[in-house]
């Protein structure tokens, strides 16, 4: 989804929205815009990717330009889990519990090769969960070992775009 092309006129034919006209779609956009620009990540880092997440949080890469500044320590006040680092079989139930204890709407960014597929610890390891989507549903994956802070920022922008498609009032065009 190329961000720069947001403003171009819709190339295809314009068919009327399913229902809910101007007012409701505007309310949807307003709420999505508010949620997307104030995503509070949970302070959760298990290994090396956490250091790159800290670099993204610090002055040079500065994720607070996108509203991610406040990293909360408790899942009660967090909207987003950035799973930064390997998830091991002993850590999986803890991660599941943390995810459950978060308030809706909640999102997950799987940062690093370990969270996508076990990464460098895929072969000959007995204790690594091969991919964090065995444990919790993931919204955005970031490859890399560890991914650069810019990659994390790009993932956050992608997550924000994904959130801006959500429907709270009008029915989704495609029956989910």
């Amino acid at each position: 989804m190329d961000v720069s092309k947001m403003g171009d006129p819709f190339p295809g034919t314009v068919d009327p929205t399913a229902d809910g006209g101007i007012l409701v779609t505007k309310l949807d956009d307003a709420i999505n815009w508010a949620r997307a620009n104030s995503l509070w990540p949970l302070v959760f880092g298990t290994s090396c990717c956490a250091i790159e997440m800290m670099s993204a949080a610090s002055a040079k890469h500065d994720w607070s330009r996108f509203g991610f500044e406040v990293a909360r320590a408790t899942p009660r006040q967090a909207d987003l889990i950035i799973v930064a680092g390997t998830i091991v079989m002993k850590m999986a139930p803890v991660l599941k519990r943390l995810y459950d204890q978060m308030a809706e709407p909640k999102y997950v960014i799987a940062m690093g090769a370990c969270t996508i597929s076990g990464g460098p610890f895929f072969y000959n390891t007995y204790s690594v969960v091969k991919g964090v989507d065995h444990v919790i549903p993931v919204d955005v994956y970031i490859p890399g070992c560890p991914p650069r802070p810019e990659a994390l920022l790009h993932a956050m922008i992608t997550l924000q775009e994904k959130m801006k498609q959500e429907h709270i009032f009008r029915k989704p065009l495609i029956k989910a």
Partner: protein
Amino acid sequence: MEAEALKQEILSIEPSMVFEEGGQFINGGIESTVLSALMKELRDRPTLAFDYLVCLTCVDYKTHFTMFYQLRSLTHRHELVIKAKISNIEHPAIDSVTSLWRTADFHEREVFDLFGVKFYGHPDLRRIFLDENWPGFPLRKNYEDANMIEL
């Protein structure tokens, strides 16, 4: 204190020790049964004063286990590796050295966790990394695990 004098001194404590040549350090091989007496003497004798247990680990040679104790004296600056051979594969067990060096507590719990070697006299022998009911001991050579993907 150079190697030869050190070897003689240790031999005087434990005559059954077999020294291997050609290693980086002085390698002393012994049976696992005579371990604790030797270790106590190595630490307490002022001329040896091996007060720093650098590392304690285990290697599974399929026919027997070997416990490696790497010792260092911070006062005399000499080093020693003790290899204690455990021949009983089904129920490997050895005396614990936690009473001599407190760092051995964690190291021995790790060896128990990954190899299944029991340590007599260890204050709190539990698995340190894996779950309590983890089947088998992963670092053994004959360890099979269904969901371990072989390269």
